[in-house]
C-alpha cells in the first residue's frame, strides 16, 4: 500500500496550480462550499486510478474525463491538465512521484521508476473505493437489499466469485444434460438388443438361453455367463455377412417403428405446447424475457431520479425503483417459464432421438433388401429427426419449431404406413435361411447390438462420473462461498456495531447491527434504542445514518485490505453528524486506525478544529480553502505560494489573473482580520462581501480599537 507525501495539481477541474504537502500523515482540508476542496479529492482519485468517479457515475451523462477533467479555460487542451503525486510505499519506504495527464489517463510516469512501487500503485488502482464521498457511503445504508448486496460485493471485489459460481452451475447443467442424453442412447441400445432377442428384459438367464440355443445349432460351446465383454459369436469360424438378414428380428424392428408411427405423438409435446402457448399469449412476458438482463443490470445503477437505462427523468426515485422492480419481477415469472420450456423441449428432443435410433436399423434392412426408395425415405426421415431435435436448444428455435411439432410430431415420411408395410412384405418374401445360417446371422447381429449397448453404457458411466464431479464441484463451491460470505458478513456486522457504539456511546451504547445475506439480497437491520431491529432509514436521523455509513465502510475496508488499509480519502462524509459525535468519530479513527493516512475534507470549521484537537491531524497538516474563482482556482491559506503564483502570472504577462488572485487573497485575509477584530460588514444573505466592504469593516474597527487604546493609555 502507499501513502501520499504531496500532490501538485495543474489545470485540473477547478484548480489552476496547487501544491499540498500531506507528509504521509492524516490531513484535513476545510473551507466553504465551492472553495475547491473536492478538486483535490478528484485529483487524488484521478492520479491513483486514472479516473474520476464523480465524472463517471450514474447521473453524469454527457460528462467525460477528457472534456471535463481539465480546467474550464483549458477544456480543449487535456495535455495541460495533470496531477503529480509523491507517494511512499508503506512496505519498503520507497518514495517516487507519479504523474498522470488527462490526455493519457490510462498511463502514468513514475520517477524514479521502481517496480515495487509500481506494483503497489497497481494495487491501489484496483481500489477506487479508497476515495470516498458521502454519496457513496450513504448508498450502503439507504439502498434496498438487492442493490446493497451488489454495491458491497462490488466494493469487496466479490463479483468474480459470483461469476465462478455461474461457471460451475453451467458446468453442472451441461454434464446433467449429457447424462440424460447418454441415458437415452443407452435405453435405445438396450431396447434394440431386447427386440433382437425377443425378450421383454435382458435377464442373464433368458439371454443365455436364447443365445445358447443358436450356438447349439452351430455346434458351439454354450456360454456360461455374460461377462464384460461377452462374445456371442465366439467359436464361429466367420461371422455372417452384412447381407444376411434375421427375418424375425427385422420384423420386430419394423413393428417397433410401426407402433411409434401409428401413435404419432410425443409424451413431452403436450407440456411443451402448453408452456410455449402461455408465452405466445402474453407479449409482455416475452418482452420481459428479452429485457430481463438489461433490467437486472440497471437496477443497481439507480442512484437518482434519472433512469440509468433510458435516461428518462422520473419525479421520484422510489417510483423509478418500483417500476424497474416490477419489470424484474415480471421477468422472473418469464424466466421460470423459460426454464419449463427448456426442460420440456429437452424431453421432446430426447424422444425424437429415440425414434431416430429405431429408424436406423430399418435403413440397414431396406438396404439389404435393395429397396433404394425406402432407404432414401428412411435416411431423410432419420435426418429430419436429428435436425428437429437439434433445433430445440434455444428459445427462439423452440418457438419456431413448436408449430411444426404440433402438426407433425415425428416428421413422418409421406405414406409412412405403406413404406413400413412394404418393408414388412419384403422381409416376409425373403426365403427362409437354413437353421445354421439363421443362427449365425442371429449371433452376429446380437454381438453388434451388444457391442453398441456396451459402448453406450461406457459413455453413460463416463457421463455419470463427469456429472458426479461437476455436482461435487458446484456443491463444494456453493458451500465454501456461503460459509465464507456468512463469516465475512458476521465480522463486518460486529465491527460496524462496535464502531457505531464507539461514536454513539452516549445514546446508543447497546447498538447492534444485523447484516444478513438472503439469496441475492443483503438485509441490513439496526437496533433502535433497544426497541428492535429496523432498516437504518426507518427511525435513525440522517446524521446517524451517515455515521453508520462510515462505520460500515471502515468495517468493509478492514475486511477487504486487512493490514494493507493505510490510506483513504473521505470527502465531507460526516456532514450531517453533529458536533459531539464528530469528536467521537475523530477518536474512532485515531483509536482503531492509527496507521491509516486519512485525507478528510470538510466545510465545517468546527470539525476541522476538532480533528486538530483530537490529534487526528497536526496543525501543519491542515489547509484552509478560503475561496475560489475561475481565474485563480482555490485560494488556499499558504502565503508564500500565493505571492509566488502572482509572480508567475506576471512573468507570463497574465496581469488579469495576477490581479484576480491578489484581490481574492486580500479579501480572504481581510475576512480573517475582520473576524478577529470584530469588524462589522453590512448583512448580506449570500454571505459574500467584496474587498471594499471588508476594508471598511477592518479600517473602521481598527480605528475604533486604536482610539480606545489611546483613551485607555491617557
Amino acid at each position, binding site marked *: 500500500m502507499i501513502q501520499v507525501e504531496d500532490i501538485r495539481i495543474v489545470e485540473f477541474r477547478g484548480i489552476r496550480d496547487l501544491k499540498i504537502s500531506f507528509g504521509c500523515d492524516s490531513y484535513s482540508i476545510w473551507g466553504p462550499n465551492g472553495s475547491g476542496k473536492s478538486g483535490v479529492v478528484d485529483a487524488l482519485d484521478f492520479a491513483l486510478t486514472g479516473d474520476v468517479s464523480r465524472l463517471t457515475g450514474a447521473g453524469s451523462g454527457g460528462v467525460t474525463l477528457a472534456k471535463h477533467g481539465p480546467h474550464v479555460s483549458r477544456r480543449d487542451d487535456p495535455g495541460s491538465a495533470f496531477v503529480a503525486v509523491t507517494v511512499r510505499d508503506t512496505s519498503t519506504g520507497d518514495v517516487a512521484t507519479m504523474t498522470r495527464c488527462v490526455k493519457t489517463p490510462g498511463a502514468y510516469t513514475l520517477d524514479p521508476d521502481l517496480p515495487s512501487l509500481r506494483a503497489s500503485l497497481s494495487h491501489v488502482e484496483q481500489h477506487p473505493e479508497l476515495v470516498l464521498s458521502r454519496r457513496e457511503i450513504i448508498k450502503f445504508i439507504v439502498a434496498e437489499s438487492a442493490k446493497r448486496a451488489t454495491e458491497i460485493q462490488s466494493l469487496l471485489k466479490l463479483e*468474480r466469485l459470483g461469476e465462478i459460481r455461474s461457471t460451475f452451475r453451467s458446468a453442472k447443467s451441461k454434464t446433467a444434460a449429457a447424462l440424460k442424453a447418454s441415458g437415452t442412447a443407452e435405453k435405445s441400445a438396450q431396447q434394440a438388443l431386447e427386440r433382437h432377442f425377443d425378450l421383454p428384459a435382458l435377464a442373464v438367464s433368458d439371454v443365455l438361453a436364447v443365445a445358447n440355443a443358436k450356438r447349439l445349432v452351430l455346434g458351439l460351446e454354450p456360454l456360461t455367463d455374460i461377462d464384460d465383454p461377452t462374445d456371442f459369436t465366439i467359436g464361429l469360424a466367420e461371422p455372417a455377412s452384412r447381407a444376411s438378414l434375421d427375418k424375425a428380428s427385422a420384423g420386430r424392428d419394423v413393428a417397433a417403428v410401426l407402433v411409434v408411427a401409428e401413435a404419432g405423438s410425443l409424451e413431452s409435446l403436450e407440456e411443451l405446447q402448453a408452456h410455449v402457448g402461455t408465452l405466445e399469449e402474453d407479449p409482455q412476458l416475452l418482452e420481459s424475457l428479452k429485457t430481463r438482463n438489461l433490467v437486472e443490470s440497471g437496477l443497481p445503477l439507480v442512484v437518482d431520479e434519472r433512469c440509468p437505462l433510458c435516461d428518462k427523468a422520473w419525479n421520484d426515485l422510489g417510483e423509478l425503483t418500483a417500476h424497474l422492480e416490477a419489470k424484474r419481477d415480471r421477468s422472473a415469472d418469464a424466466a421460470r417459464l423459460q426454464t419449463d420450456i427448456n426442460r420440456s423441449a429437452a424431453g421432446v428432443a430426447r424422444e425424437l432421438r429415440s425414434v431416430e435410433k429405431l429408424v436406423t436399423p430399418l435403413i440397414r434392412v431396406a438396404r439389404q433388401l435393395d429397396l433404394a426408395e425406402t432407404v432414401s425415405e428412411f435416411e431423410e426421415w432419420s435426418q429430419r429427426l436429428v435436425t428437429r431435435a437439434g433445433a430445440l436448444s434455444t428459445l427462439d428455435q423452440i418457438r419456431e419449431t413448436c408449430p411444426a411439432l404440433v402438426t407433425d410430431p415425428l416428421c413422418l415420411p409421406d405414406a409412412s404406413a405403406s413404406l413400413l408395410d412394404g418393408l414388412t412384405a419384403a422381409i416376409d418374401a425373403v426365403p427362409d435361411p437354413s437353421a445354421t445360417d439363421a443362427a449365425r446371422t442371429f449371433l452376429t447381429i446380437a454381438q453388434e447390438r451388444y457391442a453398441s449397448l456396451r459402448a453406450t453404457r461406457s459413455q453413460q458411466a463416463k457421463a455419470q462420473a463427469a456429472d458426479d464431479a461437476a455436482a461435487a464441484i458446484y456443491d*463444494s463451491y456453493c458451500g465454501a462461498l456461503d460459509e465464507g460470505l456468512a463469516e465475512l458478513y458476521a465480522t463486518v456486522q460486529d465491527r460496524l456495531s462496535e464502531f457505531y457504539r464507539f461514536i454513539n456511546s452516549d445514546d446508543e451504547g447497546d447498538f447492534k447491527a444485523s447484516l444478513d445475506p438472503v439469496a441475492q439480497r443483503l438485509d441490513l437491520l439496526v437496533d433502535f434504542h433497544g426497541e428492535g431491529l429496523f432498516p437504518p432509514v426507518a427511525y435513525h436521523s440522517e446524521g446517524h445514518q451517515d455515521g453508520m455509513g462510515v462505520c460500515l465502510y471502515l468495517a468493509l475496508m478492514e475486511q477487504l485490505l486487512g493490514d494493507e488499509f493505510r490510506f483513504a480519502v473521505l470527502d465531507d462524509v460526516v456532514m450531517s453528524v453533529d458536533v459531539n459525535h464528530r469528536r467521537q468519530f475523530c477518536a474512532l479513527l485515531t483509536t482503531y486506525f492509527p496507521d491509516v493516512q486519512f485525507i478528510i475534507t470538510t466545510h465545517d470549521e468546527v470539525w476541522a478544529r476538532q480533528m486538530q484537537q483530537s490529534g487526528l491531524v497536526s496543525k501543519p497538516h491542515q489547509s484552509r480553502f478560503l475561496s475560489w474563482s475561475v481565474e485563480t482556482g482555490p485560494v488556499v491559506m499558504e502565503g508564500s505560494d500565493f505571492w509566488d503564483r502572482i509572480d508567475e502570472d506576471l512573468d507570463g504577462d497574465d496581469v488579469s489573473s495576477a490581479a484576480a488572485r491578489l484581490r481574492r487573497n486580500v479579501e480572504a485575509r481581510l475576512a480573517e482580520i475582520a473576524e478577529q477584530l470584530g469588524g462589522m460588514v453590512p448583512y448580506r444573505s449570500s454571505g459574500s462581501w467584496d474587498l471594499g466592504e471588508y476594508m471598511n469593516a477592518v479600517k473602521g474597527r481598527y480605528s475604533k480599537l486604536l482610539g480606545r487604546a489611546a483613551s485607555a493609555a491617557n
Partner: protein
Amino acid sequence: MAKIEDEILQGFLRRLSESDKVPAETMKGLTGMVNEPDRLRIGTVMALIEHTTGEALA
C-alpha cells in the same frame, strides 16, 4: 486476487479435496485454475471435468 476471494477459493479447494467424486487429476486442474483465475472459464472447466473423469474410469 482480493483477500476474501482467495480465502473462499482456498476453502472451496479444501472442501472439494474431501469429496470422493472428484478424481485427483480433476482436483489438480482446478487448483491450477483457482490460482490463475483467468483460466476459470466454462470451456476449460468442462474440458477438464470430461477429460479427467473419463481418464479416471479407464
